[in-house]
């Protein structure tokens, strides 16, 4: 490819606009040259200490089961293996992770005694390399005793639901009710009441780089040195040190220079930090673990799914008087800190962009047999706004109003800022009416409506959706305590604020260095900070070197440090500005004395410190900056040092919840108004986004290019959540979307370019006037697309993701009947994922003969392919080891079969299971034998089978099909064998079961 010199836009800009501030310009990013040339430094790119070992994790195939035994002897003896740690050993080295609510419940980074979700760690193998660690994993034999599982949050609350933790009776981890204003009266007086029931699905932002940890235990000082692509909040540091049973100053947590995306997700690496640290302690060597993609999808972390019933009290003209929220939050199998934060992050914002004074809330948190939840872009916003904005559309339809009119009618008035919401948030600034007016005009809503009319006139399925959303940013570290009662809070002590830290330092030749504890994952923090600080000192961004790595042993940090809640622009960048300004004030004093002017007359511009009145009277910035190093004695007495300044900044607005449970959960509140036009294909029911308009008010824009980048990125993830992405579970807790071929991320061919429009109302509460912007579309877009789809199809209820088959089933009329004489559809899989079916076969032998075959284990070994050992436990109970394969897929299984309800020679029930590295299968079958009158036997069978574990999560597409094929083949073989008069053949349910379990849908 042709050459060209590296040329940065900043140098181009410079000639044209010397005096324009850097902030607000889309300069090229300092991060990019390294990333574009393969010189990024992500965690797996960094060298490890000599002698580092590698970990692999054995994970549970069951959603809920007791661990009866773990036999790791063979694994311990395997080549290259240093250690195998089970729950017991990890437990001995650590203490339980903090649980999000006060309850007698423990939470370990590895299963102890019981597994509660598919993918939960069961053992850790530490070996010389990853491949050998994985080899050894396969040698570990775990015996499980399965328990019933529950995956639905409402089902988990049922009286007879299986209970995950004794300390959470009825699976209920928290149940709080709140009332603000007088909702009862409002509902009583309202003309209308509208309600909506929502099931918000599970999904995750799945960064392309997975988790990574390198942990080193220092026995001499009983301390841990940990490198992890953790993203904060660093409140988790306290959780880690507590779990590792050392004081915080003995946990040195470092982050790599680059991180391959996070979107909240990399907060969830912390249980692995504890696990791998414990492993390092056990083996006395550094241990490295890089999560693989299957592990990530199955067991890293996900957003919460939530069941919500939302009701609104409405006046005749569509004004919302009151809301009644009933939210059941599903946090998965463990309530890991900081959960149930997803539920409370939005607590101050439950009225969205609307002026609603009466609110009733019931918040319940439940545990289910799914992966524990954690931070994910949008964090509670998608769940809340999907309910609220779907309801607004319902109200409009119910009252025959334009949805946009209902939105407009209820907006917080433009002159009401700062506006205190009913539930306690202080909306800092905004002009929602103006924002909407501009979006409607610039986004050409009128034209879009005409398009809809035209499309509909042609019989096409076209709809328009709207959403208005307040995007909170800079979380109050105290919001989570809203889960406690006021009395409990008093006892626990206050929690609030959002400490941001920034350090600005000048070196002996006047170079400027900035350090912040912001841990970016691609958001270009280094670039923006160089702009911010360059403006303060009158320098160019290139003159400012920024470091955003964290080393908790050396750097200024606090519990709020990290990259989440869109806090960078609003809090961190502002704090860096404050730090730079503190130094600038001192530099001004020094320069003033050198230039013989008043400090008030000093300005910083073009690399000089100069007199405003007489710019010729100036001194090079680097000279003044270096002075404090070389000649502190010549500084004015009261100037103070200018070498290094660290500022801690927390906004006073972030107070703890008050006694009425009002909480200002976030500092800043951006505004988003979206509308879109979608068309649904009549054949395929695929949703095509025709046009998407998104209006943002994120306060002052620091870097337009990056702001738009955040919006597009968030929009794309939200598009995925709306149309493609779901962490799907079967009713038995099997995880069904364990590869990138099943968990579908949008690609270039699915993502349109949204039209982005801005309006800026600066936040009065942040140093730069900026607000967060990264999460808004994750909150607004799913609801906006769903509203448009509901409009297109005339549906009252739509559930995400908007899978074409699901939409088709909602809209299409009855199916054409099969031609006469042809059987109807195949047995469909029930919601519980058990596969049922039946069939029959003709066998030449008499029923008595067939019966003997069925019960004869002796011949099994000879006839079942891959059968290595048959062990007869009793006349009706067999165990065997079998190796089986379908196509290229093969695996080894331990099978166990019992016979019941024997009715010789007429009928028998077989029940059994098989378990191996690729998964497990259970099945029950009833076989009946009837003489066919010609000396042969008519054999009929019915079965009921289920498969779980790895095969289910990575082969979902082909699994059911393969299962049925095998069952059919098995009985066909039975018929063949019997017909040929051969001795009893592989007619054992366990062969069948093992075969079932060996199936995989060979997708990619």
């Amino acid at each position, binding site marked *: 490819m042709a050459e060209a010199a590296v040329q940065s836009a900043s140098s181009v800009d410079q000639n044209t606009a010397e005096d324009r501030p850097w902030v607000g310009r889309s300069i090229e990013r300092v991060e990019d040259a390294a990333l574009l040339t393969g010189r990024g430094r992500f965690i797996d790119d960094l060298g490890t200490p000599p002698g580092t070992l590698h970990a692999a994790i054995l994970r549970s195939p069951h959603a809920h089961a007791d661990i009866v035994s773990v036999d790791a002897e063979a694994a311990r003896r395997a080549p290259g293996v240093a250690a195998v740690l089970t729950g017991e050993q990890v437990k001995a080295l650590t203490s339980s992770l903090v649980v999000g609510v006060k309850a007698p419940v423990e939470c370990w980074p590895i299963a102890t005694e019981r597994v509660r979700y598919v993918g939960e760690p069961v053992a850790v193998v530490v070996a010389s390399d990853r491949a050998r660690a994985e080899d050894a994993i396969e040698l570990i034999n775990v015996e499980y005793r399965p328990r019933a599982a529950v995956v639905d949050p409402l089902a988990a609350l049922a009286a007879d639901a299986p209970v995950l933790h004794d300390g959470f009776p009825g699976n209920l981890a928290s149940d709080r009710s709140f009332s603000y204003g007088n909702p009862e009266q409002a509902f009583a007086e309202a003309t209308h009441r509208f309600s909506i029931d929502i099931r918000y699905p599970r999904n995750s932002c799945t960064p392309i780089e997975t988790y990574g940890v390198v942990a080193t235990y220092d026995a001499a000082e009983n301390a841990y040195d940990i490198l992890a692509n953790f993203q904060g909040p660093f409140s988790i540091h306290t959780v880690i040190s507590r779990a590792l049973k050392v004081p915080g100053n003995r946990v040195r947590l470092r982050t790599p220079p680059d991180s391959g995306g996070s979107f909240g997700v990399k907060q969830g690496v912390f249980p692995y930090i504890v696990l791998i640290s414990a492993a390092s302690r056990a083996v006395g060597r550094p241990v490295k673990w890089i999560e693989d993609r299957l592990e990530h999808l199955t067991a890293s972390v996900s957003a919460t799914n939530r069941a919500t019933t939302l009701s609104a009290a409405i006046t005749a003209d569509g004004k919302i008087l009151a809301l009644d929220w009933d939210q059941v939050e599903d946090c998965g199998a463990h309530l890991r800190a900081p959960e149930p934060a997803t539920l409370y992050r939005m607590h101050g914002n439950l009225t969205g962009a609307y002026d609603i004074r009466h609110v009733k809330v019931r918040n319940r948190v439940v545990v289910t047999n799914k992966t524990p939840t954690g931070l994910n872009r949008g964090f509670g916003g998608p769940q809340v706004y999907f309910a609220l904005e779907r309801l607004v559309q319902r109200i409009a339809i119910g009252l025959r109003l334009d949805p946009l009119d209902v939105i407009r009618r209820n907006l917080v008035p433009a002159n009401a800022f700062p506006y205190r919401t009913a539930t306690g948030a202080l909306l800092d600034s905004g002009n929602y009416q103006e924002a909407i007016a501009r979006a409607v005009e610039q986004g050409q809503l009128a034209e879009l409506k005409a398009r809809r009319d035209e499309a509909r006139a042609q019989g096409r399925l076209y709809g328009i959706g709207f959403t208005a959303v307040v995007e909170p940013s800079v979380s109050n570290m105290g919001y989570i305590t809203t889960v406690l009662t006021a009395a409990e809070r008093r006892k626990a002590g206050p929690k609030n604020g959002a400490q941001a830290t920034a350090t600005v330092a000048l070196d002996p030749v006047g170079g400027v260095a900035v350090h912040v504890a912001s841990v970016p994952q691609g958001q270009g923090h280094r670039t923006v900070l160089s702009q911010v600080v360059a403006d303060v000192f009158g320098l160019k961004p290139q003159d400012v070197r920024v470091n955003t790595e964290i080393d908790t042993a050396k750097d200024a940090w606090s519990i709020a440090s990290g990259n989440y809640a869109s806090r960078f622009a609003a809090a961190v960048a502002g704090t860096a500005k404050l730090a730079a300004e503190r130094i600038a004030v001192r530099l001004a004093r020094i320069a003033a004395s050198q230039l013989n002017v008043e400090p008030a007359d000093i300005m910083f511009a073009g690399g000089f410190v100069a007199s405003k009145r007489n710019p010729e009277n100036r001194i090079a910035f680097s000279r003044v900056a270096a002075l404090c190093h070389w000649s502190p004695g010549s500084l004015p007495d009261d100037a103070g040092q200018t070498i290094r300044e660290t500022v801690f900044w927390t906004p006073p607005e972030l107070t703890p919840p008050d006694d009425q449970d009002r909480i200002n959960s976030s500092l800043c509140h951006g505004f988003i108004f979206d509308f879109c036009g979608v068309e649904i294909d009549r*054949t395929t029911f695929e949703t095509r986004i025709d046009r998407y308009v998104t209006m943002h008010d994120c306060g002052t824009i620091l870097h337009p290019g990056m702001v738009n980048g955040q919006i597009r990125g968030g929009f794309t993830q939200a598009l995925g959540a709306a149309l493609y992405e779901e962490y799907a579970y079967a009713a038995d807790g099997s995880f069904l979307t364990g590869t990138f071929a099943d968990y579908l991320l949008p690609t270039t061919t699915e993502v349109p370019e949204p039209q982005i429009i801005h309006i800026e109302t600066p936040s009065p509460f942040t140093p730069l006037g900026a607000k967060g912007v990264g999460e808004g579309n994750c909150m607004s877009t799913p609801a906006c697309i769903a509203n448009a789809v509901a409009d297109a199809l005339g549906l009252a209820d739509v559930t995400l993701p908007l899978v*074409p*088959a699901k939409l088709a089933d909602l809209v299409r009329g009855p199916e054409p009947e099969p031609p006469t004489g042809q059987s109807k559809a*195949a047995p469909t899989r029930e919601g519980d994922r058990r596969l049922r079916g039946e069939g029959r076969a003709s066998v030449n032998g008499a029923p008595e003969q067939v019966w003997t075959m069925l019960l004869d284990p002796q011949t099994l070994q000879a006839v079942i392919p891959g059968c290595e050992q048959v062990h007869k436990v009793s006349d009706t109970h067999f165990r065997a080891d079998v190796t089986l394969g379908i*196509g290229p897929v093969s695996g080894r299984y331990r099978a166990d079969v019992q016979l019941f309800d024997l009715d010789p020679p007429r009928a028998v029930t077989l029940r059994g299971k098989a378990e191996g590295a690729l998964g497990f299968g259970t099945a029950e079958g009833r076989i009946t034998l009837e003489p066919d009158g010609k000396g042969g036997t008519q054999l009929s069978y019915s079965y009921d089978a289920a498969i779980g574990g790895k095969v289910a999560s990575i082969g979902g597409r082909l699994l059911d099909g393969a299962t049925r094929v095998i069952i059919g083949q098995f009985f066909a073989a039975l018929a063949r064998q019997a017909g040929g008069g051969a001795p009893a053949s592989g007619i054992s349910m366990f062969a069948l079961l093992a075969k079932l379990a060996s199936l995989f849908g060979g*997708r990619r």
Partner: protein
Amino acid sequence: MKPAAFDYVRAESVNEVLEGLSKEGGNARVLAGGQSLMAMLNMRLAKPRLLIDIMRLKELNRIEEQAGVVTIGAGVRQAALLAWPELARTQPLLARALPWVGHVQTRSRGTICGSLAHADPSAEMPLALIALGGEVHLRNARRRRRVAATEFFLGMMATARAEDELIEAVSFPARAGERCAFREVARRHGDFAIVACAAVATSKGVRFAVGGVADVPQARDWPRLDGSALDDALNGFAYELDARDDVHATARYRRDLVRIIGRDLVREVLQ
């Protein structure tokens, strides 16, 4: 996600391949483009003792046209076939279906024969083979044989290839699919098909083939049908395919697509 250990042979002649296969049988796997096999190895779904890499064998890397019959060797990558200038003229259905196989980055490595050997029920190449009535050329250390498309696919990921056999090539009959139509519905661009349909005009009428629904792609030969006769035929076929639910689509949805797309495609080729 690292493969279990295996031996590796880069074959320097077809005989080496056949020798390896006959010695190791089911414990050996042919490594072609690796676009399906390697992922299964990484996931440890497959744990062969020996991999035999056939991709440096010049004699397998041939596309030949003889009297209109197009024969594609085991070493021919999907991208190479797509770039073959004679493709659209000789095998228009392949030209239409190939761009639906994965992505540019997988077609550049994956082979036509590897896709047939893998026999994914949603894959496009097996569907094309069934629709066009092609033949698979198999060979072991002792003999060569040819298997017709309809006999080759036995079930999901199961074929008539014996463990010691190499698929040497696949051939597509002359002038098959001169008038043809192809359409696929997948969740996203480049995904395996939820339903893929191909229609080919025949001397008597039309052959209509469907992939992604049953365990193997299936075809029906019909006279020139139209109106409700066509609808009935499609409806019957849709039910016979015994569609199933999975995470991406329901059985009913699949049957609907067979009926609707089928009608469009059959009409298109019969026009």
